[in-house]
């Protein structure tokens, strides 16, 4: 098998400030061979999209080697096409003009351009819409234009950045099926597809190989070869086993295990608290306490029951663990003692329990509370905590984390916050 892309020892950092750097990708080794569809699977913020952009030549790695077809990547490579999550169509160009754009850039003569574009539109099933503007089309049709625009230049390698995640389930499935058909029928010269997703079922459905990404910083946690023939039946046992395996890998990688040990003993003040709404958390705990679930719940089953993909579900689960309401092991989740009594409690008791857990297990929350207690007037500016957080986190992330802890603190009624003055306090609003 021929190597299409070869990545060795790749590191990517973003500048946080003059001195500090934020590590996004660490020690990534990846080889992409001709003839395979590879999925990069991970939580949002795991750096998988950054990796895709580095391969595309849109971003430069901080260090490490990126080769495409034996040559180092120094900029957007001819022969590589990309499909975007947001479609990235020019709203002022018609479908035909959008598809022609890449050919126009290559200087292909007008007539040839037209016939090739019409052919691509035909392949992707958009005939009849040539003169439509993107805004007249549904999301699914727009993404078809995105595919046609990528396929028309006859790319060797197709990079897909969460191409289906802006679409509803049925549309996504339909488009995925068509993509596989085009790939199998060899109507195009494309020799490899690399796609980024946070949807486990999607990865299991079309990929020949799944690269599971860990986060903070992004690294390759595991690789899964998929031997199931196309078309795959998502109800079959083999498929369910595959999905189970991926869940297990995503919740218990070697580094993740180490991280959990740290998490359980002591979360630093700069721990990236997941962005979770306390009332959704309460809803989740109630659901898990329902009689139809055993004490141990299979994560894929829970995901399906709630109709949530991992980007929505994993932050919830992480929060449950942080607050000690539940424990995750081997792709299963179980409510803790305090978790099940939370499920049975009324609103006021719940708030009390939430407050206790928050103060005892989240250092940032107890720190804020301590500062407010110590101050004679029980007031403190948000700035104070932000600058403390910025020792550990980027400015944006610090704001997000503080906003999350303020949300939780307000729900638990352990402190108050005034939006206009940006002050935290122990007072109830007048």
């Amino acid at each position, binding site marked *: 098998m021929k190597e299409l892309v070869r990545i060795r020892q790749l590191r990517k950092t973003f500048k946080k400030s003059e001195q500090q750097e934020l590590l996004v990708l660490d020690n990534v080794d990846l080889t992409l061979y001709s003839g395979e569809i590879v999925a990069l699977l991970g939580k949002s913020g795991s750096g998988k999209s950054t990796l895709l*952009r580095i391969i*595309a*030549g*849109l971003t*430069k790695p901080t260090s490490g080697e990126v080769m495409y077809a034996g040559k180092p990547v*120094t*900029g*957007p490579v*001819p022969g*590589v*096409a*990309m499909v*975007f*999550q*947001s*479609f*990235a*169509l*020019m*709203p*002022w*160009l018609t479908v035909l003009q959008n598809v022609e*754009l*890449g050919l*126009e*850039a*290559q*200087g292909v003569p*007008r007539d040839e351009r037209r016939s090739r574009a019409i052919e691509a539109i035909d392949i992707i099933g958009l005939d009849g819409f040539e003169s439509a*503007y993107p*805004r007249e089309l549904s999301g699914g049709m727009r993404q078809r234009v995105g595919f046609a*625009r990528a396929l028309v*230049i006859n790319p060797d390698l197709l990079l897909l950045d969460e191409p289906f995640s802006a679409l509803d389930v049925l549309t996504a499935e339909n488009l995925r099926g068509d993509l596989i058909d085009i790939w199998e029928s060899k109507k195009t010269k494309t020799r490899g597809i690399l796609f980024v997703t946070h949807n486990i079922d999607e990865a299991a459905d079309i990929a020949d190989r799944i690269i599971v990404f860990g986060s903070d910083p992004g690294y390759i946690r595991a690789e899964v070869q998929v031997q199931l023939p196309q078309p795959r039946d998502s109800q079959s046992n083999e498929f369910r086993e595959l999905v189970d395996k991926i869940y297990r890998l995503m919740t218990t990688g070697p580094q993740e295990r180490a991280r959990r040990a740290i998490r359980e003993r002591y979360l630093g003040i700069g721990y990236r608290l997941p962005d979770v709404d306390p009332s959704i958390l309460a809803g989740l705990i109630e659901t898990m306490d329902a009689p139809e679930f055993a004490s141990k719940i299979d994560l894929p089953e829970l995901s399906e029951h709630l109709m949530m993909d991992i980007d929505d579900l994993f932050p919830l689960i992480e929060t449950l663990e942080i607050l000690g309401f539940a424990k995750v092991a081997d792709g299963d989740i179980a409510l803790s003692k305090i978790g099940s009594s939370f499920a049975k409690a009324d609103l006021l008791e719940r708030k009390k329990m939430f407050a206790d857990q928050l103060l005892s297990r989240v250092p940032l929350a107890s720190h804020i509370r301590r500062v407010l207690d110590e101050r004679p007037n029980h007031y403190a500016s948000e700035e104070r905590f932000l600058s403390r957080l910025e020792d550990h986190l980027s400015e944006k992330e610090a704001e997000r984390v503080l906003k999350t802890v303020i949300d939780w603190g307000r729900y638990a009624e352990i402190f108050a916050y005034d*939006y*206009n003055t940006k002050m935290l306090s122990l007072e109830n609003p007048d």
Partner: protein
Amino acid sequence: MSKVRFYLFSQTKSLRFINEWDLVAFIVIFGVLFTFAWGASQMTTPYALGQPIAITLDPHALPLYSARTVLRMFAALILSLLFTFTFGTWAAKSKRAEQIIIPAIDVLQSVPVLSFLAITVVGFIRLFPGSQLGPECASIFAVFTAQAWNMALGFYQSLKSIPSDLQEAADMLHLSSWQRFWRIEVPCGMSSLLWNTMMSMSASWFFVVVSEAISVAHQDIRLPGIGSYIQLAIDTRDLTAVFYAITAMLVVILIYDQLLFRPLVAWSERYNFSEFRDTRPAQSWFLDLLGRTYLLRYLSSGFAIVTNYAITMPWFRRKPKAIKEQSAKLIKIRFDWFWYAAMIAGIIASLWLLLGFIISNLDLYEIWHAAVLGSITLLRIIILLIASSILWVPVGVWIGLRPRVTQVAQPIVQFLASFPANLLFPLVVMLIVRYQLNVEIWTSPLMILGSQWYILFNVIAGTSSIPKELAYAAHNLNVRGWLWWSKLILPAIFPYYVTGAITAAGGAWNASIVAEWVTWGDTTLQATGLGAYIRASTDSGDFPRIALGTAMMCVYVLVINRLLWRPLYRIATERYQLS
């Protein structure tokens, strides 16, 4: 930001506020201006052209005059577009250029048109000795200075806000910079550019008299056009002629509005890709008409072939661009040093020139005097803003709550906003003279006559965008009277109101030059204020005072922006924005 807010002189003045770079730009620009002023004061030879062109008040001459005026405006518009495409794009693409160009435009747009004219007219006359081309160029340049800044700023802003995924898509498709400009950047900026162009056109009508009947720096030049016609009518106290001129202007504005701007707006709907679109897209009967003709189809396919050829010209095709290598970093650092050194040198030189000029030509008292005049004008503007808000907010809310009335009222208000209010000045002067009114008070309304519509306009837009559910909820809770105003309406329209007020205030500063000094025949009414100060100095060609007055006005505008409008605007967007 919703797109249904409208702006007068600069849409972007409200979005960008001054920073330390403005100070730098201020110093450098005025260093240069003062130098020019000094140069000009050395060569105040009156312009003499064998036979001065006689302007006649015969209404039959008006079509020709109108044509010449419009031609001048469009010539200036082409210049403004060129300026926009080069400097707006440059600022958006190069960080270094951005540091210079944007603050410079900020300062330049608060320099009154009259000052530009006074400083440049002699130079233009010298450039084309004995030919009418000199004054023509000066006039076109003056119109250009009324048009260019907000167009360039608006274009720059839209280039900066091109979605990153479109940029990445362009990278992946290997578009050259030339293709990128025409396929992505210009389309992205199209809506804002068009609106700003329309605003610029009304701004240039506002200064049509000043820019055609050039009576600055000991010159007395009348270029054939509507402006000179009006000036002559005012000189000879011919009310009928003023009426003719107003009619001619109305017709001209109506014609190019219907035949050019409406079709362009309707056509540019496709370039407006914001999610929150008006429910009713802009319509143009003329565009519809053209769309039905074969001629247009013929022309447009021809046009498509030509633009296609131009955009894909091999000459502009780029070689695959590599991402910048690390080794380039060292050169960059060196260049940075060079750059900052050059800038500091520029600042020191300008500062030296500026101080030298002020100290040698003016005393401290003069500066103090100008500052006091500025605060008088400021006071006027504040009172006017409050007065027009008290008048127009209730009216706007009343209209905005009634969709039927809104549909009728909005185009009318829009037209009123583009109508040069200074044409009504003679009427006001007559009233003041007849009833012996106080000049200080009664000339003031003229300052806001043209720009008050922006308050009304924005209040209407704000009221009609209040979500129906909110209004129903308030109704359901039986919220009425003052409670209804203070808890529902005023907070909801606040962001719109602020935008309108910023625009109106900006317009008022500009208008103070023509409003604090009005003439009717040999009656000249002169109020005390910075506008009258600048006007008087330009009339007498007193360059140090022109420069001082202009600089003072810039200082006032920039400081008010910083101290008042920026905080208000921030509050409006953070707290009162209905998302």
